[in-house]
């Protein structure tokens, strides 16, 4: 028979490190149903029939965040056999707050006091036996980082789980509150299992509407309970929920006074000393800039792009390509099969693999930033700037990485706790021009604007403007409504992270991308190969040479939808197909243009190469085309990362649809306003002006519902 144990604890308590230490590589990473919160399960090392579930890091079970809700629902509904509650020994007071709530659930529990090595170093003594007695649970002192006492914790946890008993919480509130809770249990909860009564009694005392509805408390009984609560509130001159919160902390304080002894510590801890410099009013921004530049330079510029380029152009573009096509020719494989293997499958695999080095490097950095505690400071430093756009201070990193590659950038968004902020970041990150868009920018800049300088600058400016405007507009829509995320964030102590945890986290993230995205990218590459290299020549369906691409399926499709792009100034199949081919990878747009307008690789150096392009485009249509490519739907790899991070087809469709709409309309505005200046007002000028007015209105209108309930209850002076 299998045993289920949940691991619960505060964020930054070392929960992930503990989970890794307990399960090793025996992990399954997924998502909680319907949300973007990571869910991890693993088999307890040495106990093949014991499954550990890693609950999201939470401070409380009050359900004011998705994480808290998931943890609460899991604990109440899935009936785990035991809870391992990990608490940070250097920060017991706040960590034990969750412990008082967990204990009320009636589930057998083990308390794991983590970071004991640091506790001892700081000269604090914890009488863990007495602490355990105060809560009525066994206690194990551990260091997840150094993996001390992990086996002991596993042993005690399994033993506790096998008792199949119930925990009877031992912490007590003050007399009046206990009296009221007892009364609530008596009148409303007597036919519920005894070990769950206290949990429900406290929730009813706090007037928790969810629990009231769940228990189906009739109105007269509710009124009766309400009298009790009012009575206590008068006596304590406070509201019931804050009475409970205060009393939990009072209880913890009283316990800690008994069980801990500290030498009077006057000096600042090493972490405080680091923080005095790192988030110093004047030094914080320069230090932030240096760290971000280092992350960018190494992951995007140096290791990332060099290795990625090498994989793409050398390993797959030349070495493997020539080896494979040589062998295939030698074996006399049919031309279509060769095409499928080389241009379809190999190209697809190459494009998946080329993302890997960047991703690995980036995720190593990200987990280093997260585990060391600096990520919280990033939010602290950047919050003021980003919150106006419905983003989190932590959105800075995805945006920065987005200038290299959208795929790891979108995945970097998972360090943002708040779901609205995370979704907003995922939707807007691809507006930042990624490395693959640079060749397109360069092509248009050189063909029409005599150099790339300000065009490239304009492209970044446009991307940032799209992020900012989208943030302001989307924040006010019902999609992102709800209370503004409270920014009440712990700044955890700086810690040297464990290499094992960094490696496991990086591995989890990268391998989940490869597993999920590679199939989609591969299929897309094959599909695109097929529609590009097959078509009708003289009424016969056949495989095409490169020069015959006008006859391809994709050209036929381009002709079919070209009218739709007329208002953008380039309603002709070639640019339309080129833009569509950007779905595979944005730099493919340039390749497609090379094929369509005859300036393939050979002519790239000569200026005449642009003649074909100039004959078919004006600077205005060129600009409109560039804007569309920059802002509309990103490549398939990025879309599949959006799908993975959103964990929802609906949100993915919204993100892609929204970006395409923004790209289409912005290109339309540019072309139509330009045409207006050159030839005069038309129907389409009106559309463009109307769209600008709509955007301005959406930006400037007041938020439809009050973003937050009135801050201060005005009932007292």
């Amino acid at each position, binding site marked *: 028979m299998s045993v289920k144990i949940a691991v619960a604890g505060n964020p930054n308590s070392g929960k992930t490190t503990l989970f890794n230490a307990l399960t090793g590589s025996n992990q399954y990473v997924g998502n909680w149903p319907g949300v973007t919160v990571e869910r991890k399960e693993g088999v307890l090392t040495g106990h093949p029939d014991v499954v550990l579930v890693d609950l999201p890091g939470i401070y409380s079970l009050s359900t004011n965040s998705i994480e808290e809700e998931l943890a609460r629902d899991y604990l109440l509904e899935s009936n785990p056999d035991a809870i391992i509650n990990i608490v940070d020994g250097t920060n017991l007071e706040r960590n034990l707050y969750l412990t008082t709530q967990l204990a009320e659930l009636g589930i057998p529990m083990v308390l794991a006091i983590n970071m004991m090595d640091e506790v001892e170093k700081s000269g604090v003594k914890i009488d863990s036996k007495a602490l355990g007695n105060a809560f009525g649970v066994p206690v194990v002192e551990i260091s997840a980082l150094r993996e001390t006492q992990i086996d002991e914790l596993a042993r005690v946890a399994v033993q506790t789980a096998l008792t199949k008993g119930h925990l009877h919480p031992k912490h007590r509130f003050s007399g009046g509150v206990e009296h009221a809770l007892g009364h609530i249990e008596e009148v409303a909860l007597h036919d519920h299992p005894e070990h769950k009564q206290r949990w429900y009694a406290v929730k009813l005392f706090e007037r928790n509407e969810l629990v009231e509805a769940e228990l189906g408390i009739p109105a007269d009984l509710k009124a009766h309970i309400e009298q009790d609560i009012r009575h206590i509130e008068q006596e304590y001159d406070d509201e019931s929920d*804050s009475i409970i919160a205060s009393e939990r902390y009072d209880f913890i304080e009283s316990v800690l006074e008994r069980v801990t002894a500290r030498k009077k510590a006057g000096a600042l801890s090493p972490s405080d000393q680091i923080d005095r410099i790192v988030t110093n009013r004047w030094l914080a921004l320069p230090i932030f800039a240096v760290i971000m530049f280092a992350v960018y330079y190494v992951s995007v510029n140096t290791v990332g792009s060099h290795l990625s380029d090498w994989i793409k152009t050398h390993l797959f573009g030349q070495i493997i390509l020539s080896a494979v096509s040589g062998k295939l020719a030698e074996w006399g494989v049919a031309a279509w099969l060769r095409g499928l293997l080389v241009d379809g499958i190999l190209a697809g695999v190459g494009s998946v693999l080329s993302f890997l080095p960047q991703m690995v490097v980036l995720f190593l950095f990200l987990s280093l930033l997260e585990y060391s505690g600096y990520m919280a400071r990033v939010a602290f430093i950047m919050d003021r700037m980003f919150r106006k756009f419905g983003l989190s201070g932590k959105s800075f990193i995805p945006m920065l990485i987005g200038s290299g590659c959208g795929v790891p950038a979108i995945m970097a968004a998972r360090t943002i706790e708040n779901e609205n902020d995370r979704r907003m970041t995922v939707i807007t990150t691809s507006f930042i021009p990624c490395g693959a868009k640079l060749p397109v920018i360069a092509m248009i800049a050189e063909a029409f604007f005599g150099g790339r300088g300000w065009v490239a600058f304009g492209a970044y400016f446009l991307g940032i403007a799209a992020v900012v405007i989208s943030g302001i507009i989307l924040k006010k829509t019902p999609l992102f409504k709800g209370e503004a995320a409270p920014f009440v964030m712990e700044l955890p102590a700086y810690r040297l992270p464990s290499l094992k945890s960094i490696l496991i986290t990086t591995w989890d993230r990268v391998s989940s991308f490869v597993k999920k995205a590679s199939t989609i990218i591969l299929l897309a590459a094959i599909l695109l190969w097929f529609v590009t290299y097959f078509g009708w020549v003289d009424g016969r369906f056949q495989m095409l040479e490169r020069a015959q691409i006008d006859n391809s399926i994709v050209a036929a499709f381009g002709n079919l939808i070209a009218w739709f792009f007329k208002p953008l100034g380039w309603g002709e199949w070639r640019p339309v197909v080129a833009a569509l081919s950007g779905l595979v990878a944005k730099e493919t747009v340039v390749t497609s243009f090379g094929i369509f307008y005859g300036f393939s690789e050979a002519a790239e150096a000569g200026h005449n190469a642009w003649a074909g392009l100039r004959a078919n485009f004006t600077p205005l249509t060129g600009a409109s085309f560039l804007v569309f490519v920059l802002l509309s739907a990103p490549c398939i790899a990025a879309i599949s990362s959006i799908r993975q991070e959103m964990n929802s087809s609906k949100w993915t469709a919204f993100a892609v649809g929204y970006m395409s709409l923004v790209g289409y309309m912005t290109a339309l505005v540019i072309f139509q306003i330009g045409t207006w200046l050159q030839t005069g007002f038309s129907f389409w000028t009106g559309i463009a002006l109307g769209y600008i007015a709509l955007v301005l209105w959406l930006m400037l209108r007041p938020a439809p519902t009050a973003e937050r309930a009135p801050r201060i*209850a005005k009932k007292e002076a």
Partner: protein
Amino acid sequence: MKTLRDVGIGESARVVKVHGQGSIRRRVMDMGITKNVEIFVRKVAPLGDPIEVNLRGYELSLRKDDAEIIEVL
């Protein structure tokens, strides 16, 4: 009414009451800002908001707007 927002950097204050409603109020209390707790205002972020405070032996950051719901003495 004096709130946490009015407490200067490097000063301490004692919490009288947490006002406000909904998840922000809940969250503030869950993080240990409850009646009678002593809060030390350590610093302000480089862009002027949020602030960093110390209480119950750990560091917490919150926006000045949110600090307004915390009545102090």
